[in-house]
């Protein structure tokens, strides 16, 4: 082979590598980063209710029942995609749905909920974002499944979809319920 084909051959190698890169990055969703919290107790917290800041709810009050903690904010666009799903399918989950309002002005958050509806059994506000740091929240929306003993069992980053509810959340929730019942 003549030397003048060498650049072409070199490029073919680079191309193959880049093609592999695309294939690989699609197979390995960066969202699948496992949370170090999974299998460990959820961080201790006690946060004011969004509707009534004088009352606080936290790990102690939530213990004894499995619950789903959904991180959201009025400034978060993806949350707008997720919200209708929670509105329509939230009751199907059969466990407590805790809204975790993340770094949000309370007035904005209330207006947002008034506009789009309230799927949450209870909504707590983390204005400073300290508790979110303990949970390792990288952005909104994020969702944590916590069991009756307060152990984080599952974490999902990005908006929940009906498929996620069907394939990821409901099977895990039914296990949690069996554990709680048994």
């Amino acid at each position: 082979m003549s030397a003048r084909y060498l650049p072409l051959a070199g490029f073919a190698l680079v191309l193959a590598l880049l093609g592999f890169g695309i294939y690989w990055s699609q197979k390995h969703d960066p969202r699948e980063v496992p949370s170090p919290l999974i299998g460990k107790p959820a961080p201790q917290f006690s946060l004011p209710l969004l509707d009534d800041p004088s009352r606080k709810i936290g790990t102690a009050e939530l213990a004894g029942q499995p619950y789903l903690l959904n991180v959201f904010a009025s400034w978060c666009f993806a949350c707008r995609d997720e919200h209708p799903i929670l509105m329509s399918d939230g009751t199907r989950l059969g466990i407590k749905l805790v809204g975790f309002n993340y770094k949000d002005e309370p007035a904005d958050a209330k207006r947002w909920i008034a506009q789009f509806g309230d799927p949450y059994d209870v909504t707590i506000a983390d204005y400073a974002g300290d508790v979110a740091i303990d949970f390792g929240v990288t952005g909104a929306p994020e969702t944590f499944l916590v069991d009756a003993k307060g152990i984080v069992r599952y974490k999902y980053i990005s908006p929940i979809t009906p498929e996620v509810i069907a394939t990821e959340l409901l099977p895990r929730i039914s296990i949690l319920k069996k554990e709680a019942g048994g």
Partner: protein
Amino acid sequence: MIPELGQLALILALLLAAAQCILPLIGAQRGNRALIAVARPAVAGQAVFVALAFAILTYAFVTQDFSVKYVALNSNHLLPWYYRFSAVWGAHEGSLLLWVLILNVWTVAVAAFSHRLPDDFIARVLAVLGFISFGFLLFTVLTSNPFERALPMPFDGNDLNPVLQDPGLIMHPPMLYMGYVGFSVAFSFALAALIGGELDVRWVRWARPWTNIAWAFLTLGIALGSWWAYYELGWGGWWFWDPVENASFMPWLIGTALIHSQAVTEKRGSFRAWTLLLAIFAFSLSLLGTFLVRSGVLTSVHSFASDPTRGLFILGFLTLVIGGSLAIFAARAPKVSGGEPFAAASRETLLLINNLLFAGAAAMVLTATLYPLLGEALNLGRISIGPPYYGLRFVMFMAPVVLLMPFGPFLRWRSGDWRAALRSLMPALIGAVALAIVAAVIARIVADGLPFKAIVGAAASIWVGLGIGLYALSRLRTAPPGRRYTPEMLGMILAHFGVAIFVAGVLIVEATNIEKDIKLAPNETVEIGGLAFRFDGVKSAAGPNFKADQGTLTVLKGDAVVATLNPQKRQYSRGTQVQTESAIDPGLFRDIYVALGEPIGTDGAWAVRIYVKPFVRWIWLGALFMMLGGFVAAADRRFRALPAAKRETERALMTPARAQV
């Protein structure tokens, strides 16, 4: 309604790009004047519609039309007006549009200033540029439409990434793209020459100023990016060998080689195939850089937008453009040969070495950037390559460059004399060695000894700087007045002088900078590098769209206040991340750099980063000189016109030859 007009403008530009690519190419192959004549109007039309689309997107940002998804995602009502302009290129869709706009600026310039070139040649050049534009416009329209609506219309926008809310970042992307995209001109010239088979040297002479200008812009863009990373990321570093930085640096390295090889080809006729190949490589690496940044294949602190499906499109486009041009090169390159012979001791030899070293360095950076990917492909597990890997290898390539650089101007073309060159350079050599010895001795007596690296840096800087100074002096003595410094030569002198400044900056700051991370309580004072830093506590501050914790540090030398610095930790109103704003007391010979870490405990103590960085500004000062050199050299009138008489003879000679065929 107006955003839809923008989308329509993009689609019309896409169609005109297709016309600009196909028709002139057919015209040039068949000798059809009418089809060739389509090229320039198509260029103008496409540019108008792209500019219109860009203006409409800018208008949407300025008037805060949050019904446009891209606007809503990248700005909000608190964003100051000047950032609304730069927010246009703050994320993927808009930066792509900027890319296309700049390509159109270059294309219009080529179309406007090329009337002296043969029509069929310039038709092919514009066709190649049209093809590139077509690809990018198609990509924009199909996968990254900036005019997509957000329904229902959000009440307020998200925000521009706080990292980008900075003056340095307003200009960084446009300058970088001017460079990246500017290499498309040399690329399209090379391809037009290959397609048309007219491989005489005229195209090189004509391409040279364009390459120089693109290179100068790229130099400025990289320098701005580096300066921004220095003060904005809060780590005090100026280069991280991050994949995105590498993406801009590889075309720069190849571009540097190209500038030098074009000079040889234009003046001596040698290295023709090599110059063609470098022109293809320089632009290919620009495209590859765009791919790496946009596809999400390599993760990096800089990739603000990445999406694998877009990656597939760019990969296909890369295959067509790079694969296609290399295939054309492989088919046609054998016809490109000739040039005058040269001896081992000649300027040609030195420039060949320069080319090999720069190309080698670019290949090293490319393989290292792709190495983690290779690791995954061959199942070697996660591989990460850090700055030490690059640093060592890069120095191995660049040390000979610095060593040989002063010889270049002193060696003649074709056949030079090493000894005579060395004799001319003796003062620089003596100066460099003497400085090294004196510095080492003084440092030994005064302090614990100056680091080896700093001495090497200063000596190398003197060697290059004095070397080029001696050349300037010899021109002053020997050349006739008026012809002493042509712009081309002056540009070379400035750029090489810039290298001297840059080398001093890099090595001295690497060797002697002081970095301290310490906990400071209010009113506590710490002594660093002969300066006293008093921490006056942290207070709240506010800007137009952020709240901040602002620290105050008073820097004292004895009893005199050197500087009062106010580093901040900013919380943007809509952002989720805290942004560190370092505070710098700049100086030609040293920067004092402080940044706030985290609060510690409850008594008002904070973790504070304090850096003293001698000569750090020389890094960017050197880059500015290099940039200036690029612009000055491009201004040489010699590139712009062939003497009219000579052209006549060439034509006369060419016609019968063609008639015989």
